[in-house]
């Protein structure tokens, strides 16, 4: 296969209710596994190793701005130590089907500052508190929704009994009178979604918010999508949903 280098210009970073994309200019994902030495006298003079506990760390550099829970400082400050917020990183455009890395995190560091005359920036570090799943975008951030509907079918695959399907909902913009958004993740045997099964129902969102959720396997269906139910007076939502399969 021809190597096509990826220039990182359009990476999407969703953390809680923050779309950090337009504020950020650096992101790093660092999944690791503990290196356990099991060398014995019978190892033939070479180390033998096995993998231990998995861990993940994500860090980003984000320009500072404050205002509401769609702004970097408000979200990073509120989430420092909170340990409940979902994080999704998409290396490309964030369109439906784009490869996404997702997890639930504990924000362990929020470092703010700059030299005089420079733009105020911050370095944020998140530690994973569930598996870092490699999945796809089920709903794109950039498509405003003002009425109920369903998304594009994506073939994420089946979920074995030793796995979960992890999903992150990021509600990034809300307007209208008494707006309410209920997002479900559904599966089906094929992409027609003739007889879908609800696998995850996120709590109704009425403001800027986020939720991580998951469903335990086994699920033999291989096709997945989101649906959304919207109510209120001229409501409008921008939200992103990512999902991926990882060990439970």
């Amino acid at each position: 296969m021809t190597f096509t280098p990826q220039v990182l210009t359009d990476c999407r970073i969703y953390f809680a209710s923050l779309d950090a994309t337009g504020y950020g200019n650096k992101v790093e994902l660092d999944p690791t596994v503990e290196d356990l030495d099991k060398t014995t006298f019978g190892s033939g003079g070479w180390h033998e190793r096995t993998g231990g506990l998995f861990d993940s760390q994500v860090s980003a550099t984000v320009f500072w701005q404050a205002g509401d829970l769609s702004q970097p400082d408000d979200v990073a400050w509120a989430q420092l130590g909170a340990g409940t917020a979902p994080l999704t990183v998409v290396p490309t455009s964030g369109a439906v089907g784009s490869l996404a890395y997702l997890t639930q995190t504990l924000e362990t560091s929020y470092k703010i500052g700059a030299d005089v005359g420079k733009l105020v920036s911050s370095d944020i570090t998140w530690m994973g508190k569930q598996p870092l799943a490699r999945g796809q975008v089920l709903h794109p951030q950039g498509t405003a929704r003002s009425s109920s509907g369903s998304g594009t079918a994506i073939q994420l695959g089946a979920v074995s009994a030793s796995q979960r399907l992890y999903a992150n909902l990021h509600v990034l913009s809300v307007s209208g009178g008494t707006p309410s958004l209920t997002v479900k993740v559904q599966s089906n045997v094929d992409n027609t979604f003739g007889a879908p099964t609800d696998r995850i129902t996120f709590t109704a969102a009425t403001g800027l918010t986020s939720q991580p959720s998951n469903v335990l396997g086994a699920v033999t269906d291989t096709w997945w999508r989101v649906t959304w139910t919207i109510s209120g007076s001229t409501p409008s939502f921008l939200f992103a949903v990512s999902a991926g399969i990882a060990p439970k």
Partner: protein
Amino acid sequence: MDVQAIQQGLATAVTNVTGIEQALPSLTDAINPPTFAVTEFEMTYNQTFKGSGIGMVETLFSCGIYTSHGNSEAGRVALVGFLAPSGSGSLKAAIETDRTLGGACATLLVERVRGAYRLYTISSIDYLGAILDVRVWSTS
């Protein structure tokens, strides 16, 4: 992002600075000093991830301030007044009064002065002057 709107915003910002005769969004062939004019810019894209917008773009505008024909004491006195960091004759103070230039950019900083007391040739005429570097950030 509209570069010419930023240039016009810079010129407009200094129009009422004490002593300025001309404030131009770009340099013309003939000037009537004391003249402020945007002379050139360097632009750096991709200062943030793009997202649905343009990403943050950083542009360094070079702005000339020309105070007299040839080298003169009056020109030098006028020049240091324009280059002061504050006061009614300060170009830096005037430009930084509205850091968005009326919405033309996200923010800006008058960063430094270069080449003060140098002679700059415009249409074969030497003018005493200096260059101000104005760093401008745009996000839309």
